[in-house]
């Protein structure tokens, strides 16, 4: 058991079983599908309230994603703690400015490049999740387990754009 917890990476099937159990517990105990992107929208709404009150009063923040410290935001604190503990247990926790070896090999060690991609990618991801009504966790997995058409339409879109973007970024290395 302890050696399993110390493994750097689990079989995706084993980790998938754990995630599936988390979804069951969440729906059972809290009556809600866990989602990751919602937290950032709720927090973004709080920021908007301060810097652009008129914006925070639009239909989206009023009716779809109300600003505030919501269930999702509290869950996000748990997500950070859970992944941190998992990384520390396997000794893979490390502070890095260019987070991944593959990125370094392909795009170089320039910090600004990785951070710019992370920043712009983060904006695009959140915007896309807002339009679609969820992200990979709340919509693709959370909807997928109810065979909601939305989940599969979303995943089709995700690959329709993700594949060409990866092709453009990797060119001959694709």
């Amino acid at each position, binding site marked *: 058991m302890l050696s399993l917890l110390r493994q750097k990476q689990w079989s995706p099937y084993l980790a998938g079983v754990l995630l599936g159990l988390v979804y069951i517990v969440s*729906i059972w105990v809290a009556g809600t599908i866990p989602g990751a992107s919602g937290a950032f929208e709720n927090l973004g709404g709080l920021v908007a309230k301060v810097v652009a009150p008129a914006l925070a009063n639009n239909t989206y923040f009023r009716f779809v994603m109300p600003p505030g410290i919501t269930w999702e935001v509290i869950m996000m604190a748990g997500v950070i703690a859970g992944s941190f503990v998992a990384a520390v247990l396997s000794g893979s926790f490390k502070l890095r400015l260019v987070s991944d070896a593959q990125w370094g090999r392909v795009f170089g060690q320039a910090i600004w490049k990785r951070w710019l991609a992370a920043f712009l990618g983060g904006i695009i*991801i959140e915007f896309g999740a807002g339009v679609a009504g969820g992200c990979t966790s709340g919509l693709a997995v959370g909807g997928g387990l109810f065979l909601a058409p939305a989940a599969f339409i979303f995943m089709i879109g995700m690959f329709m754009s993700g594949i060409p973007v990866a092709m453009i970024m990797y060119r001959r290395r694709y």
Partner: protein
Amino acid sequence: MELFVIPILIGFGFGFALQKAGLTYYRNIVNVFRFTDLTVIKFMMTAIVVAMVGVFALNAIGGMALPVVPATYIIGNLVGGLIFGVGMAGAGF
């Protein structure tokens, strides 16, 4: 108190599973779009199947209430997915 403990514990399991699956690494996310590593697909589909069986079993046996299912609005889901994929492949989140 309960208001905080439950979402934090659920989030803890969520983050733990994602880290152990390797979904917190750039390479594992982007490589699914290059079809060189299908970890993301294996992980997500396993979670969907396990949760599906568990949720509907509990619903059938114990009468567990089902949550609000994500709404389907075809254009929005598709366009949102298209935008999402750009960021996901670009940043590796």
